């Protein structure tokens, strides 16, 4: 039974180990794959947001371009400038500085709105060079964006106009919690015009430019400097707790941010394939393991059936054999003293006895006999058994030496003990007759009963000593050649020793081999 469990475990290992190995490799592969996908995703996000940034930059550039074109035509005196302001829908406030940087417009009388504007831009009136120091022109900003083709176009146009156009650029300043944008332009005559954008209108224009996309795989939000959301598009609903990625816009809106959330890339496509592969591999392996397992159990079942069959047959043989033996012995008693007839009869008896032992062995092997405990006189039993072998031994020229010193009776199964001895002695008869002697001793030592059978034969090589107790194992050498045997004698002997609570071991006796049966004096309870 233990062996079957071991087999099962082995088979499971056969399935699990390769699967685990391949799975691990696949996981590693997927992991690196997901890294690649993550990088690709990041690129996509980057590209999308850059597109937005670029759209905004283009819008700013078109505003700036438009003004650079139109402003030179403006009459630069305060009255006219005020009139122009009324037509500039995107401009909230406007200022005009003279060549000496003196403020020409707005100048008193001021409307209340203008008054506030003048106060907020106090720093500029004090130092108009602040405008220039922030960032020279949007063109230098575009050089920073990672869309080289586009920025080249812009820069080219900026360069083309550079000869005619004096400086211009964007200026951003803080107004309350928010920021305001201002476009400034310096005329050839040295005057500076500043156009402050209407912030709400600027935001509204940006919203107009941005898409109304309701694709569900992403969501983008635009936030201004104060963190207020301006606009959102894309129908993706972030999981609770999912974080938006933040990207700042380019100058002059560097304090504005774009936020992105979207469906994360999944290794679903490749992962599914791998999973499928792993799954089918597992199926194949499990199938194979099951097949092997069934094959093996089938063999075991078949072997068990064979043993059963042999046991059955042996059992059937036992009765006729007993009869043969009984009548032969009865005949022996009544026979006249004709040595030839007596000799024949002796052979019949001894052969039927041998056959009886053989059948007894087979039966013992195929089925576990019940224990029949009784008081057994060990020395007597040994003597009695030896007596059975005397004719055979003397025929082969084997002398029997006994040294029986046990002198006790123990509670044991006489039949089993006899069978153990039978097996040991029959082995001596079969394989160690060349030694010419067998020594059988009994003694008591250390609360144990020792019965040993020592022959003077060829002995058993050390390597074989363990194997000889395995069923059906026969040493393959000259000794066993031509000698018939079942290969189960020692196996049974050891099993029976075990059943009796003792053990059977073999040791080297040079020359020959010694089999020692050890039995406890107090048998106790044994399995």
């Amino acid at each position, binding site marked *: 039974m233990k062996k079957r469990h071991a087999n099962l475990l082995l088979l499971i290992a056969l399935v699990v180990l390769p699967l685990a190995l391949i799975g691990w490799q696949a996981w590693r592969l997927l992991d690196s794959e997901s890294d690649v996908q993550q990088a690709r995703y990041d690129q996509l996000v980057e590209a999308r947001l850059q597109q937005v940034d670029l759209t905004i930059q283009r819008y700013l550039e078109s505003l700036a371009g438009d003004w650079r074109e139109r402003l030179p035509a403006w009459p630069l005196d305060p009255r006219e400038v005020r009139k122009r302001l009324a037509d500039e829908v995107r401009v909230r406030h406007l200022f005009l500085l003279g060549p000496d940087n003196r403020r020409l417009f707005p100048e008193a009388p001021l409307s209340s709105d*203008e008054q506030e504007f003048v106060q907020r831009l106090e720093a500029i009136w004090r130092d108009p060079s602040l405008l220039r120091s922030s960032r020279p022109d949007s063109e230098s900003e575009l050089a920073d964006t990672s869309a080289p083709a586009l920025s080249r176009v812009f820069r080219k146009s900026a360069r083309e106009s550079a000869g005619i156009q004096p400086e211009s650029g964007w200026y951003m300043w803080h107004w309350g919690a928010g920021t305001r944008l201002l476009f400034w332009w310096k005329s050839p005559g040295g005057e500076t015009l500043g156009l402050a954008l209407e912030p*709400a*209108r600027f935001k*509204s*224009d940006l*919203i107009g430019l941005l898409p109304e996309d309701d694709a569900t795989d992403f969501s983008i939000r635009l936030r201004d400097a104060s963190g207020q959301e301006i606009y959102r598009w894309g129908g993706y609903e972030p999981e609770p707790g999912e974080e938006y990625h933040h990207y700042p816009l380019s100058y002059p809106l560097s304090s504005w941010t774009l936020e992105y959330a979207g469906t994360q890339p999944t290794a679903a496509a490749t992962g599914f394939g791998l999973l499928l592969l792993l799954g089918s591999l597992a199926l194949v392996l499990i199938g194979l393991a099951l097949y092997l397992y069934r094959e093996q159990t089938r063999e075991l079942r078949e072997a068990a059936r064979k043993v059963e069959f042999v046991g059955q047959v042996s059992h059937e043989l036992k009765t006729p054999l007993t009869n043969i033996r009984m009548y032969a012995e009865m005949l022996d008693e009544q026979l006249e003293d004709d040595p030839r007839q007596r000799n024949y009869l002796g052979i019949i008896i001894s052969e039927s006895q041998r056959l009886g032992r053989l059948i007894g062995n087979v039966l013992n092997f195929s089925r576990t006999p019940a224990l029949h405990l009784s008081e057994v006189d060990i020395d007597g039993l040994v003597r009695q058994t030896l007596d059975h072998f005397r004719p055979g031994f003397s025929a082969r020229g084997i002398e029997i030496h006994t040294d029986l010193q046990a002198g006790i009776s123990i509670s044991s199964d006489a039949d089993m003990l006899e069978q153990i001895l039978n097996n040991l002695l029959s082995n001596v008869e079969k394989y160690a007759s060349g030694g010419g002697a067998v020594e059988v001793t009994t003694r008591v030592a250390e609360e144990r009963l020792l019965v040993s059978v020592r022959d003077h034969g060829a002995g058993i090589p050390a390597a074989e000593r363990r194997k000889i107790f395995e069923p059906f194992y026969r040493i393959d050498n000259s000794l066993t050649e031509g000698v018939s045997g079942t290969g189960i004698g020692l196996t049974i002997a050891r099993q029976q020793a075990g059943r009796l609570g003792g053990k059977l071991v073999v040791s080297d006796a040079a020359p020959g081999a010694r089999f020692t049966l050890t039995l406890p004096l107090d048998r106790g309870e044994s399995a």
Partner: protein
Amino acid sequence: MKQHPFTLLIILFLTSLLALPAQARQIELSAELGTPVVEAGRAHKTFLKISLTGFELSGLTERTPANVALVLDESGSMTGEKLEEAKEAALLAVDLLNEDDILSIVSYDSHVKVLVPATRVADKSDIRRAIRAMKAGGQTALFAGVSKGAREIRKFIDKERVNRIILLSDGQANVGPSTATELGELGMSLGKEGISVTTIGLGDGYNEDLMANLAGYSDGNHAFVEDPEDLVKIFNYEFGDVLSVVAQDLLIRIEFEDGIRPLRILGRKGEIIGREVTTRMNQLYSDQAQYILLEVEVPEGTADQTRDLARVTVSYQNMANRQQEDVRDRVSVSYSSSSDEIARSRNREVVTTATKQVANEMSKKALQLRDEGKREEAQRVLNSSADFVRSQGAMLGGEEKEQLEAFSAEVESEADAITLDEDWDMRRKAIKAKQYRQDTQQTY
């Protein structure tokens, strides 16, 4: 007498042809003082009323083509009857427009959708289908909705069209810029561009300051609708308005003479810079009178002296002949020592209007105080407003006296109610809408 109907038709047609060139077809401008004759020997404050009157457009063929963006709120709070009524109203709008008009429909919740991009109203069935498919849900991205509507308008923006966004919302803006100031700024910028925004507030959930600001700064209309059934009525008005604009993009410039000091503009938004006042109006409807009211300070003068007070210039786009035109007027003030003459010359109509407008300013003040939690002060302001109106009525006497007394009683009941909590949300919206109507001389 039996005549062939066809002959009758021809006669009618010919008469109308003859009548057309004869029509004045220019807006009328008149500048009047509340007290054109003032007492000599001391400085005075008086009211200057500048009235603009449209002319009648004859027949539907003359109707100005419209460029309308309907911006519809489909946020979660619109669920149910409100959205259905809004849809009905939008469908009505579609019915009122024809192939010469351009219509776009934008809806918004947390996101903005352009349901119908700006297009000539040719295939109405597609437009109707888009309207009927609207579903309510999500937050209120009002600013973005109006912005997208403005973008649609700009695709076909044209001085020869009436360019208008009609916003219909029941909710507070909660996605994107959402303060009254920001919406006002957006409205101002759109107004400069010739796009006016009419805001219609539904239910008691909306932010009336925001809606009034957006409409006010862009020179549109603002109405508060308590009952969704009123929507149809308002759209009828609104489209009546859109369909009968006779002048657009009016720039009113008033240059005061030396010594005359403009103190404030009542109701309208405008700029006072030194002695010059400018204000704008996006449109003037046919046969409708609009006015600008200013309070001015007149320096002292001697009896029988007459001095020039101001020159008024109005530049506008005439929608009948598609021309840019100017109209001008002058106004002067006389001094007298006869109180009789002063009383006789008093312009009763201007004084009445000014009185109501001043009362309106006080009502705004009271509302502000009430918002700040100063209920008693608010009540005091309204009570003094009622007293002022009554005293003005007593001064004028006659028909105006009755009118102003009724008005005074109204203000008094407003004063009584302002300290109460009950239904304040709804009442505040009603008050705000009333103030708005007074300020902008809105027809509904």
